């Protein structure tokens, strides 16, 4: 007698549909195999969950397309500052004005880097990510599916194949990150990931718009 494999149970909200958590994990490719099978089987026959997943994909893609230029999460958010910090800030501004610090020098302080997430995608939503020109740029590369190394070599070349940036970086949770303090000029670029022996592992297209 064939004994069927016992699957870890996937949580279904109200007993009918996949929970938002499961949906998000699936959309981000993080749902582990036992639940993955159960989820995909349900997805094949459930229009509601298909629509919810389509919306989830759309939100994720939208945030990745447009969110990068809006904010970097490590910035300290002004609304969370305690009153003491507000007071200290106001005092500091007052002192700065008093000391004659030119507004010009403040205004030209380094800008917050734009963050671009580069990943391999399939399907209708995958297109070349675009970064703003002339602004510090942080590229985050998705290494999912690549052979694991303690360090990777990263290179950015322009459309003519000339190298404009090179670095070695250690991965952090399937991600490789590098910041270009001066950013890039407008144009088409390719971001390449090599193993330590400098064999090309993956290449991502990147567009920088002025």
């Amino acid at each position: 007698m064939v004994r069927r494999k016992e699957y870890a149970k996937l949580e279904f909200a109200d007993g009918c549909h996949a929970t938002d958590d499961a949906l998000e994990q699936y959309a981000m490719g993080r749902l582990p195999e036992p639940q993955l099978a159960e989820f995909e089987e349900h997805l094949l026959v459930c229009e509601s969950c298909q629509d919810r997943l389509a919306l989830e994909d759309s939100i994720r893609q939208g945030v990745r397309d447009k969110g990068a230029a809006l904010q970097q999460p490590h910035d300290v958010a002004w609304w969370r500052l305690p009153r003491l910090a507000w007071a200290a800030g106001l005092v500091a501004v007052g002192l700065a004005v008093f000391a004659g610090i030119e507004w010009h020098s403040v205004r030209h302080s380094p800008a917050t880097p734009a963050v671009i997430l580069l990943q391999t995608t399939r399907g209708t939503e995958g297109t070349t990510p675009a970064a703003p020109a002339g602004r510090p740029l942080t590229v985050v590369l998705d290494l999912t599916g690549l052979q694991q190394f303690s360090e990777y070599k990263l290179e950015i070349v322009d459309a003519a194949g000339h190298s404009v940036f090179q670095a070695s970086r250690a991965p952090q949770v399937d991600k490789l990150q590098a910041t270009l303090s001066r950013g890039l000029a407008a144009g088409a670029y390719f971001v390449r990931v090599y193993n330590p022996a400098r064999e090309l592992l993956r290449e991502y297209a990147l567009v920088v718009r002025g």
Partner: protein
Amino acid sequence: MMVNDIADTEDDRPASAQPCWAALVEKIRQNDPDGLEELYRVFSRGVRFYLCRQLGPQDLDDRVHDTFLIVAQAIQRGELREPDRLMGYVRTIVRRQVAAQIEDNVLSRKQQFDLDWGLAVRDTGSNPEQAAIRQENQQLAAKVLKSIAPRDREILIRFYLWEQPAEQICTEMGLTDTQFRLLKSRAKARFGLLGKRKVTRRLVPFDERNWREIPLKR
């Protein structure tokens, strides 16, 4: 009510109305056209959705057709031993289709790379309709992200762009797990309200006319 409950999406459609798999499989084995029709009706949209999401819209109709052909013929040959596992069987076939297509793409790309003369390469760029849809989605995303509260926006960016785990977001933003879920849900609902109709309706329209294309037992 749980904050991540499906009820938050205001989608009160019932879950899949699943037929009796054993009866359905038996009908297909008997080469009953009703069985094939039912198979197509139950799985068509899901198979299209899965293939489109994994491989894109190119040749989608052909791929869906191939999938049903494989499933129907395998059932008729008696290869599905446990009729109750029909959903799992269809999933396996669809995943094989995806894997085979990706393998084919890799092989053809490699062959093209090895050639040193010019050859026709399929244009993988968006067609005008896809480009318009994508632009519309981007405009929608920009509109929503600018319109929501800064804290909600930060949550979405941390979660989707930086892929930070919920625990980290809660710690760094000083939120409880419930607050995090509530804020994330609220921010996503804004997307839902503005874009749900536009985004989901265009994805994979179900077309019942195609079911009769499945060839019967040979």
